[in-house]
């Protein structure tokens, strides 16, 4: 038997496969397709303090091996989540991780405090990397100073494992990871989407109502993989890698580049069962390569 268990600090996951925030809704939407309890965990859609309608339609455009989105953190707010959604999903036997967002540091703190009481949410992912909101989001994540400020503030307020999610739209992601680690992150997750754009040549109009949006999918994999490797070399805390993972081989590559756990995003839209196939595929790989534990592969790329 191979060992798929991994740990983010003290928190044990039954396997390294989780699903990415904003691509897995609140889990329930996938319950027709798969047994959620088999997942290492799932990251729920970004939460904000207040109800948000997100950006106007159209919010999506297909691109070569990927897609752009500008959903813009549509959600009914933290209180609605706590009273209506959390009770429905809390009994899944897997880790539910909240992805939190805000326009101000105070927002982030309030959301964090409200989450502290939810027993079945063992970790929060601090999203300072959403490219689709006018205030907050990526604005926090592209400058070291603001990234450190919000991380420190949330660290103080947060009684759970704190994962900080980085934006790839920066010059030096290793340096950003280092300072965020210094500010108290228990783990670094990356990458969020790349700021991109699409135009319809015929109508001369942008394909997204917001003009620009976030690029995800296999197209970004080579860049995301490189960034995971850069961050892995730069920090001591565990890294959670993502960006275009479509199958088990992709997942193994992210693990070899230094990911302790991985997140599956856009792939869920095309195959809602892909996460389980990836768990099985990683297990097969370990058996085939006679590797006892998946943790033996973390950062084990041979140069």
């Amino acid at each position, binding site marked *: 038997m191979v060992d798929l268990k991994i740990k983010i600090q003290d928190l044990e996951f039954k396997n390294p496969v989780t699903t990415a925030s*904003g*691509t*897995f*809704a609140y889990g329930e*939407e*996938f319950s*027709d*397709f798969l047994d959620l309890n088999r997942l290492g965990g799932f990251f729920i*859609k970004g939460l904000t303090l207040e*109800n948000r*309608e*997100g950006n*106007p*339609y*159209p*919010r*999506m*455009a*297909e*691109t*070569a*091996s*990927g*897609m752009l*989105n500008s*959903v813009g953190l*549509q959600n009914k707010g933290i209180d609605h989540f706590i009273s209506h959604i959390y009770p429905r999903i809390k009994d899944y036997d897997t880790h539910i991780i909240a992805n939190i967002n805000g326009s101000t540091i105070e927002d982030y703190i309030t959301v964090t405090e409200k989450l502290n009481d939810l027993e079945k949410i063992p970790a929060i992912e601090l999203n300072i990397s959403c490219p689709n909101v006018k205030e907050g989001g990526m604005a926090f994540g592209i400058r070291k100073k603001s990234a450190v400020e919000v991380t420190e503030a949330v660290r103080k307020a947060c009684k759970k494992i704190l994962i900080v999610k980085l934006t790839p739209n920066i010059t030096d992601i290793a340096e950003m990871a280092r300072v965020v680690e210094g500010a108290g992150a228990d783990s670094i997750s990356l990458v969020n989407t790349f700021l991109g754009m699409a135009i319809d040549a015929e109508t001369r109009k942008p394909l997204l109502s917001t003009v620009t949006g976030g690029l995800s*999918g296999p197209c970004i994999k080579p860049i995301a993989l490189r960034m995971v490797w850069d961050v892995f070399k730069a920090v001591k805390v565990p890294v959670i890698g993502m960006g275009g993972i479509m199958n088990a081989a992709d997942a193994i590559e992210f693990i070899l580049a230094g990911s302790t756990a991985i997140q599956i995003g*856009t792939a*869920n*839209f*095309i*195959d*809602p*069962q892909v996460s389980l196939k990836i768990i099985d595929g990683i297990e097969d790989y370990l058996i085939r390569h006679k590797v006892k534990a998946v943790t033996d592969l973390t950062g084990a790329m041979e140069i």
Partner: protein
Amino acid sequence: MTRNFFFKNMKRIEDFTVIQHHWLNENTFLIELKSSGQLPVILPGNFAQIQINNTPGVFLRRPFSIYNADYKNNTLTFYIKIVGKGSRELGLLKPGDITSIIYPLGNTFSLPDKDKVLIVGGGFGIAPFLLLGKSFREHQKKTTFLIGGRSKQDIMLASTFKKYGDVLITTEDGSLGEKGLVTDHSVFNNNNFGYDMIYTCGPDPMMKAVANIARNKNIPCEASLENMMACGFGACLCCVVETTSGNKCVCTEGPVFNINDLAW
């Protein structure tokens, strides 16, 4: 097997086998695909997310209304207009080819309280209305289909729809039926209009025009929307439409909406 109109089926992802194409004109076809198991109940208005294989440049699945469901042979039929790479590839499939389908997705139309219904379809917007017409016949409603197109060649399947109700036709060039847009059809000018509910599907401007008529006549109206979708099952929040109570997902809270709920 008992089938309950009101029972919400589990969504599933399944490999279907292509049985045959039936070409209606050079860029419109029916494609029939067979399940390896037993079909769940398909409600009128339900759609499916079809995977497009072998096509570089098509990354996401493509949403298509379920045109027909044959529970005896366990086949689904889709009515597809070629508009780009994905729909073209579906036309190129060969009998025996396999494609993955996520279905049944979306909500369904309401049963009207009263008896006489008008169904207005433009372009491939007639796709969800065969199942609706069938269902109305089971429920003893009197159905009229109003089908619009640019010209004669765009009007397809009228004889099929005739089995389930009267068929009225408009063409922009007057080559078949009345000349003009669907909303120009004399049925709407009639002083004693006589329909108790309107259902519509087609290009947005057409649906909005039909909705306006319904509002003016104070008649309930449902529209089936066709927003761009990445997932089709409520995971991405890309397909929203603005409603009177905020943005709603067309894929899970639609595709069928009462026009009064839409911020049109």
